[in-house]
């Protein structure tokens, strides 16, 4: 008990955070998601009523659909574009640092700033639409912010602008981690560069891809600020996302139980992503500990 006493005292904030905040508060939220709490938490249990209401809600359905669109597009484009950018930067080019700085700076900006800039660029009266129409293409239309079907794609474009640099940086670090001799061996073997990337380098970078994937996925579930700044969830509720649903029901509409039920669904989704990944990571580490026998 008193062994490493100083260490235990020093770790108290961490222990408190881990137990009371991350475990305790999560359990609290799950617990109260089964109650009929409105503005304030009450212990009146209604079973799965909040969940049934949630999955009957058209706004929630739209939120889920939107986060799915945002998620798939983000994953596909940020992984492919990020990897491609990293590959091009890895070609021993000139001005590599300049390019890298340019690709990465949006990541230093907040989602609010990102959302507002793109709101301005996509503005239907003054933005890109107007510029291209002024060039003589009068039929050109790009008013995706006021279009119910496309508003979510504006969020995708802005999100990619902000986040692809990170993927690029992670992939570049991964590429630089590949043994130089592998490239030499492939050249001696006469394997073209694109095949070397496809069949040798990408398989070798599997851990980098998995980590990046998990990071992007965790970010996708949390997307909130960007929507608030860019579309406010509109037009109507056409670009709503789950995180915003939770916030609005908890604080805006005084329907705490509903918000908590939605947040519990989010938590479950994250756990579904996270647990296989954690299992893989730790499973692999255990495997690595066994040295290859001579």
């Amino acid at each position: 008990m008193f062994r490493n006493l100083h260490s235990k005292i020093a770790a108290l904030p961490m222990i408190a955070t881990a137990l009371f905040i991350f475990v305790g508060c999560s359990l609290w939220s799950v617990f109260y998601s089964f109650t009929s709490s409105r503005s304030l938490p009450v212990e009146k249990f209604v079973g799965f009523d909040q969940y049934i209401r949630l999955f009957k809600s058209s706004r929630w359905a739209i939120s889920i659909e939107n986060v799915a669109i945002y998620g798939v597009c983000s994953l596909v484009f940020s992984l492919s574009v990020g990897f491609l950018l990293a590959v091009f930067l890895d070609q021993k080019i000139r001005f590599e640092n300049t390019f890298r700085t340019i690709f990465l700076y949006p990541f230093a900006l907040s989602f609010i700033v990102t959302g507002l800039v793109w709101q301005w660029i996509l503005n239907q009266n003054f933005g890109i639409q107007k510029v291209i129409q002024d060039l003589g293409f009068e039929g050109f239309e790009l008013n995706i912010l006021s279009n119910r079907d496309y508003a979510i794609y504006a969020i995708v474009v802005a999100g990619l602008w902000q986040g692809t640099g990170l993927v690029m940086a992670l992939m570049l670090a991964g590429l630089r981690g590949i043994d130089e001799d592998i490239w030499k061996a492939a050249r001696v073997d006469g394997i073209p560069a694109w095949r070397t990337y496809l069949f040798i380098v990408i398989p070798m970078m599997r851990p980098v891809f998995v980590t990046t994937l998990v990071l992007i996925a965790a970010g996708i579930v949390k997307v909130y600020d960007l929507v608030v700044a860019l579309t406010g969830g509109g037009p109507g509720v056409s670009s709503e996302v789950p995180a915003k649903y939770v916030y609005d029901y908890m604080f805006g509409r005084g329907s705490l139980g509903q918000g908590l039920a939605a947040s519990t669904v989010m938590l479950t989704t994250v756990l579904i992503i996270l647990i296989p990944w954690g299992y893989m990571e730790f499973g692999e580490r255990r495997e690595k500990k066994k040295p290859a026998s001579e």
Partner: protein
Amino acid sequence: MSSVSINDLSLSFGNVEVLKSLNLDVAEGEFLVLLGPSGCGKSTLLNCIAGLLDVSAGQIFINGKNVTWEEPKDRGIGMVFQSYALYPQMTVEKNLSFGLRVARLPKDEIRKRIDRAAEILQIQELLKRKPAALSGGQRQRVAIGRALVRDVDVFLFDEPLSNLDAKLRTDLRVELKRLHQRLGNTMIYVTHDQIEALTLADRIAIMKDGLIQQLDSPKTIYNRPDNRFVAGFIGSPGMNFIQGSLAFIDDSWFFQSRDLSVSLATYPFTQQPIEGAPVEFGLRPEHVLIGQNVADLPVQLNLDIELVEPMGADTVAWSQLSGTSFTLRVDSDTALSSGQRILAGFDPVRASVFLSDSGIRL
């Protein structure tokens, strides 16, 4: 005809000259070792031969063909790397065949080559395994196999044994020598390990600062080093160097230093000696003898033993001569102890004399 020819090859990275107008000819079937300290340019030279580095000036010929601008795959070479560089996600078989499949060789030809390589290297049972499941020695065998299936005339080795432990290194060294005997290919081998160089090579090229210091058979390199650098680099424990000068007395040349005067009447001078020139007199520790044999030797001297290092097979004794430390290597059965005074002797024919300023052998 020579198998690999390097003609006035230079390579600079920015302002740093890594290779300086280098010339080298490797005969067909020869085992040539490039040996030198790190940063001497030996690996760079090998990479230039392989086509992995673009040269700044000069030409490279392989089998009489000018390959200076050719891609590595078109040069007729196979290469083995220090870190093995196996493709980790592929089985051994795929590793061996990947280049051949990309080159669209017929399936049965690929099969034939893999079988032959696997048979030569004794890796038949490993073909279905992935590199991660192999030991270091097995991985290096597969890496050699990848060069083997390319069916080329010239093999390039870039410190292939450096990642292995001492025991395995010795085993694989012997295997490599056997492989060379069996295949008869030209092999160019880079290493910083002088034992590897001495045991494997037909000829050794000792490099320093982007230049070849000496290119000769291991025996010549060891016994008649061309300059002070080569003499000091090869041999362990290293050659003894005694500072002194040359004197011409009674129609005969002498080496003179504080504690030692040696007649060089029998010494095979390669250059005209200069009277009074400051020189270093080099003598390998094992060429200094003690005991009964001393009586017949032209030079005899008394040495105070300061330290004795038993090495197992033999014993190294440390002493002082003309103000520098002086080692001798004797049979381990010889009873020696520190503080003892002994009579030792040597034959100047086996010595090497170098000019102090330029380091050139006289």
